[in-house]
């Protein structure tokens, strides 16, 4: 079938397109495929899970599409920033998509995720829409935080995404708090508290880990090690760059963060562990192609060869593409079509977001306090007096 479409591509293009489209959609087959992860896992005080990961064609195609969507979104955000439609800080996630996508495949929306400011793709993974993302980035009122948060403050309460935080490391104690609440409520879910290799040197992480371990809280600390804390390489800021070992008494696992299936396996393993035994640290060995943020070219502290080298050899989307093709789940062309589709989706979302209005001036004062709680009082907002003096 694949041969046919390729050979008579030119003649039967429209038909083949339709055929391949239907084949795409009907490949919702869940027949298991076993894939070996690129690298074995390294464990610290724990036996690492096996390298063989069970997956399905549907899952692989979903991975591809989701990662392509995320990649496209981040590139589009780059252009929007340069066009000055996005202002302030904009931290892009391209290169690291596998972490978000792999994690989502292993967990449910009842599990909580909290991360720092590199949160656009994780928000998407948690069920956020492109429209909400772009509207928020451009400061419009249809954004996920009504335009009042910005790039670093994406949240989605109904699907357990707790943000979106600007201060490095401050989200990890919050994450431990989320898992505290999960334990308090006995709801058998876990929290993934994500942070970077730069944040791994924050004291509050160790404080939080201590408490999580003390009380067996179902928390998983995920270090997205992209090897650079803005401009400082990990070997220049950490005496011990083995972040998965830094937990000391808490077990750790080192994972190839560019391999979505490895991430999925590790997160599944970690969730089982955390529910029974308390915190575990996952170190995702990943890489970001962009600089730290849009104000950082990303080439003053690393060579362009390094960046293109990683792109050639470890790119997460390429890996899934190769897997899909080698297992004959889709053709090269179909995948390219998916990418085109995704591009169109992103462009449409941007166009729609550009139409969205800026927040009203009255929004400046809303949501500072929650008004009224039963005891008779005027709102906790100095603008509101109970009575006007004559």
């Amino acid at each position: 079938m694949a041969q046919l479409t390729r050979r008579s591509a030119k003649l039967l293009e429209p038909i083949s397109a339709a055929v391949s489209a239907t084949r795409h959609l009907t490949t919702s087959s869940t027949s298991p495929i076993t894939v070996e992860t690129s690298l074995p896992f390294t464990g610290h005080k724990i036996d690492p899970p096996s390298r063989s990961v069970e997956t399905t064609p549907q899952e692989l195609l979903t991975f591809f599409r989701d990662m392509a969507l995320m990649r496209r979104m981040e590139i589009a955000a780059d252009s929007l920033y340069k066009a000055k439609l996005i202002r302030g800080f904009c931290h892009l996630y391209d290169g690291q998509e596998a972490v978000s996508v792999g994690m989502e495949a292993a967990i449910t929306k009842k599990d909580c995720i909290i991360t720092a400011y590199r949160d656009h793709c994780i928000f998407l993974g948690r069920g956020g829409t492109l429209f909400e993302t772009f509207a928020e980035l451009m400061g419009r009122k249809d954004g996920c935080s009504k335009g009042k948060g910005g790039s670093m403050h994406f949240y989605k309460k109904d699907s357990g995404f707790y943000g979106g935080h600007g201060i490095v490391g401050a989200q990890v104690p919050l994450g431990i708090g989320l898992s505290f609440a999960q334990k308090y409520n006995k709801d058998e879910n876990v929290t993934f508290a994500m942070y970077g290799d730069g944040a791994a040197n924050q004291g509050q992480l160790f404080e939080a880990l201590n408490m999580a371990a003390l009380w067996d809280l179902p928390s998983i600390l995920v270090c997205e090690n992209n090897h650079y804390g803005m401009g400082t390489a990990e070997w220049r800021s950490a005496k011990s760059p083995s972040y998965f070992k830094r937990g000391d008494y808490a077990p750790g696992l080192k994972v190839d963060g560019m391999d979505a299936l490895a991430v999925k396996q590790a997160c599944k393993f970690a969730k089982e562990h955390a529910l029974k035994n308390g915190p575990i640290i996952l170190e995702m060995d990943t890489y970001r192609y962009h600089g730290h943020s849009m104000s950082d070219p990303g080439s003053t502290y690393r060579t362009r060869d390094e960046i293109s080298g990683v792109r050639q050899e470890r790119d997460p989307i390429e890996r899934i593409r190769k897997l899909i093709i080698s297992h004959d789940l889709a053709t090269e062309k179909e995948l390219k079509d998916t990418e085109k589709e995704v591009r169109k989706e992103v462009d449409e979302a941007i166009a729609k977001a550009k139409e969205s209005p800026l927040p009203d001036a009255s929004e400046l004062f809303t949501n500072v306090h929650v008004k009224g709680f039963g005891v008779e009082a005027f709102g906790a907002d100095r603008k509101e007096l109970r009575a006007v003096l004559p």
Partner: protein
Amino acid sequence: MAAMLQSFGVSSASVAFSDHSAKLSVRSLPVIRSEARSISCPTNGTRCTRKITTKAVAVENPASAASKPGHELLLFEALREGLEEEMERDPRVCVMGEDVGHYGGSYKVTKGLADKYGDLRVLDTPIAENSFTGMAIGAAMTGLRPIIEGMNMGFLLLAFNQISDNCGMLHYTSGGQFTIPTVIRGPGGVGRQLGAEHSQRLESYFQSIPGIQMVACSTPYNAKGLMKAAIRSENPVVLFEHVLLYNLKERIPDEEYVLSLEEAEMVRPGEHVTILTYSRMRYHVMQAAKTLVNKGFDPEVIDIRSLKPFDLYTIGNSVKKTHRVVIVEECMRTGGIGASLTAAINENFHDYLDAPIVCLSSQDVPTPYAGTLEEWTVVQPAQIVAAVEQLCQ
């Protein structure tokens, strides 16, 4: 006659003062009863010779105590009562802090609660203010209602980032998705020679944080009421207690009551001057008020209670009546609550003022250890009397 009365008034006031200061050790502050307050007869303007109870101690006549409604307790017990009632009422309420559980709280506010509610609900945290405050805020994001105890308010400076960014701002930056119903409480203020780092007044640092509410309790009655209100509030509330006020005794109602977080308390109505104060300085003001009354002044004393936002309604009505304002606070001169209150009153009620606002605050120095120096750091009743006399000339 008047001269005799006058001298009697003066001497009794000075006796009271020295008695008062001798008794002002950490564990034995006399109760300032709120009943015997106004001693000026409104009808003919003369002063009555009604005696003011300056040294009401533990109930001397049990029989008479039983006949009065309500029950007597100390301020820390009132806080505990409020806390316990709220924990009973709502299973989401939990406490976190250092030594709150098994130890019972360093000021006994949480004594017995861990035995009753378990170790998870009354959580003994390690000494990690930044992260356990963050942890409580994270728990609050999911719907729990944690009460964070700072063993001393000064230690919460370590958690400033969490309190400012996550506690105060998350409701706004998430576009209203998350509410943070936490209560952050603990003793602060200048104690008895506790040293500079343990005598801090954090209300001046926290007051700019958008999104939080701040209240200061000063009597067992308002301590319990404010504690309950703070727990029930959907907003993050910082409840400032004072190290020296924990052993105040008062009779409070048996029935359940919750006070408003945004209202000030009229301690003593008057006509000549409005004295605004809060927390421990209320007692210095009341002492000065006695002297002032004996000297023929009629001060109106308001315990502002709500430090953020200010109860401009009560304060405004008072300013409209008296046209003169003295603020007595324990914060430092620079950037304290008094500074903000001065600005707020000037902005809103400028036309009603007959004279510039006088703000008496602590000195802009780290609190020294030596007793006499420490006394001079803080506003004393004599200074309040002098300020009012000068203002009302």
